[in-house]
């Protein structure tokens, strides 16, 4: 299964994912491993809690002066010979990048992993314009060959077995190799090395952008970030406006907790700070550097309920601990960003109507907020989204009616008291030994679980006796 079909209801997409045995095994192994790695990394790192507080504060402080820091970033990039573009929509971002590609005669682009470019659906636009776009992050490369979308923010091909990857390489690269990760990696290295050296255009995102220096920061483990930004003659970086950080000192705070949160590493293998195009005297580096600043719904949230979601570092820690994500994986969510933060980002980018189902894809357990390096209160915003769905009447009228009635019963002691004998009466055909195994209207529960019947004597009805007992 490749793309999630949004015309299929979310509940069904989730059901499909749970029937996929390979996916289930991969999800369990991967998320359990990441959870353990993160836990070990922070157990070994007593300053971690203080740094998370500081990181959150820096993100908030940055937003409070966002215009100033962005202007500083822009001025520095331009001073160093780079170009800055402003994209209000995904469409604008695609247009800007295509213009650059066409003007510079690019025929092939190599890409370092960038969720922002997935968000604006750049690859399709490049291909449509006759430009080959090659994903170079191994996981992204695999899913690109498979014509699929990533299923996890940092481990995009987690849902594929090595056997599936070998089959894929045999089919798409016409190379038969053993289903061994070492061999498969070596094959990919060779294929992609050739692309790096021949590409005209390098496209990246930006994990951070340092306002004080005009540097773009790329965090990778493979080294493709360095390749993509030093070998082709043009470099385009696409970046959400919230990625700006004020200074190198601030950057170090984030670097100390980012990799630990994502994979349990102290640092990812490569953290690359790129300031503009090639300097005089340098042997390599692009002739042109372009920074595309992306709005796509972010600006509106500066004063919106999802403001805190702008702190997100895209580490994926919340996905790994989310009981829902762990059962269904990334594709079932249906949008670029999956998992707990993904629901908020989808609402940010595509509006509340996009999350009428997804806003409820959470038990509000709070595990996500617990592990978020910048302490984003995801459950709080999920509840806010649900409120918005009610306020805007986007929730189904049957549901709104039912909750309206519930509110009336719970607000009236008389109605509440009266509801109990009514419930006991209605449940009589279905209750046996205090348990209901199946009942109309409650099928969604009773299909897999017994339901307790309303007690023959509720606590309130017992209180008088209990009170006497105590005196």
């Amino acid at each position, binding site marked *: 299964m490749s793309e999630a079909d949004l015309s299929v209801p979310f509940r069904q997409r989730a059901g499909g994912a749970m029937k996929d045995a390979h996916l289930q095994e991969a999800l369990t192994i991967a998320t359990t491993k990441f959870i353990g790695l993160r836990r070990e990394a922070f157990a070994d790192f007593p300053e971690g809690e203080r740094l998370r507080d500081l990181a959150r504060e820096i993100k908030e402080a940055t937003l409070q002066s966002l215009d100033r820091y962005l202007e500083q970033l822009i001025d520095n990039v331009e001073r160093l010979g780079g170009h800055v573009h402003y994209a209000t929509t995904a469409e604008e971002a695609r247009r800007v990048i295509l213009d650059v590609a066409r003007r510079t005669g690019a025929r092939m682009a190599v890409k370092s992993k960038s969720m922002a470019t997935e968000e604006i659906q750049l690859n399709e636009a490049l291909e449509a314009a006759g430009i080959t776009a090659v994903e170079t992050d191994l996981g992204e490369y695999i899913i690109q060959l498979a014509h699929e979308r990533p299923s996890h923010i940092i481990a995009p091909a987690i849902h594929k077995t090595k056997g599936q990857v070998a089959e894929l390489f045999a089919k798409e690269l016409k190379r038969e190799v053993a289903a061994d990760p070492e061999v498969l990696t070596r094959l990919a290295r060779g294929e992609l090395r050739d692309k790096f050296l021949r590409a005209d255009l390098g496209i990246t995102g930006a994990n951070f952008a340092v306002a004080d220096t005009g540097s773009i920061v790329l965090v990778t483990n493979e080294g493709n970030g360095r390749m993509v930004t030093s070998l082709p003659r043009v470099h385009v970086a696409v970046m959400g406006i919230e990625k700006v950080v004020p200074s190198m000192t601030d950057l170090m705070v984030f670097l100390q907790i980012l990799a630990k949160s994502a994979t349990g590493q102290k640092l990812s293998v490569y953290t690359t700070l790129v300031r503009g195009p090639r300097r005089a005297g340098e042997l390599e580096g692009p002739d042109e550097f372009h920074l595309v600043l992306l709005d796509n719904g972010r600006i509106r949230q500066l004063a919106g309920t999802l403001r805190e979601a702008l702190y997100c570092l895209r580490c994926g820690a919340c996905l790994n601990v989310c009981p829902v994500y762990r059962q269904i994986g990334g594709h079932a969510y249906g949008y670029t960003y999956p998992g707990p933060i993904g629901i908020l980002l989808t609402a940010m980018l595509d509006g509340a109507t996009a999350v009428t189902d997804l806003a409820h894809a959470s038990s509000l357990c709070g595990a996500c907020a617990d592990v978020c390096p910048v302490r984003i209160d995801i459950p709080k915003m999920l509840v806010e989204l649900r409120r918005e769905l009610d306020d805007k009447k986007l929730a189904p009228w049957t549901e709104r009616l039912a909750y309206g009635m519930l509110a009336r*019963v719970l607000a009236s002691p008389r109605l509440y008291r009266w509801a109990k004998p009514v419930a006991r009466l209605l449940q009589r055909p279905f209750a046996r030994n205090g348990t209901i195994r199946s009942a109309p209207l409650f099928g969604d529960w009773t299909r897999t679980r017994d339901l307790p019947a309303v007690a023959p004597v509720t606590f309130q009805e017992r209180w008088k006796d*209990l009170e006497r007992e105590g005196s």
Partner: protein
Amino acid sequence: MTQALRASLMVTCLGDMFFPEVGVSTVRLLRRLGVSVDFPAGQTCCGQPLFNSGYHAGAARVGARMVELFKDAEHVVVPSGSCAFMLKHELPGLLRDRAAREAAERLAGRTYELSQFLVKVLRRTEFTASVAGRVTYHDSCHLLRGLHESAAPRAILRGLRGAELVELPAADECCGFGGSFSVRLPEVSSQILDKKLKNVESTGAACVVACDAGCLMQLGGGLRRRGSSVRAVHLAELLDGERPSP
């Protein structure tokens, strides 16, 4: 002679209707510990089911009533982590009227989930109810992450004469209840529950203890459907002399 501590019980809607024995056990337990217990009449619900699903006007109305009902309480004891969390952390911010909000904040300061009340207010961790056999403990999400409480219930369970507390693997992972989540996405909820129950059964415990009615509905409902001999029990019932079969 010091005046007896006074506690007002908030039994919760699920507790009242489905698990009255939990309320009964709570009252008897507190009385045995020298606490005088009252039960403000006319209580219904803290408003959480409405709040979590986004029906905030309704939640505010329902919750505000509770604030009014409990305004004279010295301590409010709630045998449910999620309801205590609602009262302490969500309800005040929900109320627009300043007087109501301040009353809610004052109430929040006097509200305790049961195990927290036992350990932090009454300072008791050793209980006279004796229990035979293995027990294991499931951390309810709102008690664990909302009220930052994982030690009090464990301290109590460890102090139970004759009982052996076995740590539940992944005790801090959700049971899959999540209120309406359990019926909006029942397949996902059930799969989460399956994994939780596998862990429960792996401990060899005769019962799994929790401090939240929602978790107990989910855990108990799943265990019973499987025909398991393991029982889902509220902490209060265990301390009231209930004996799980070995």
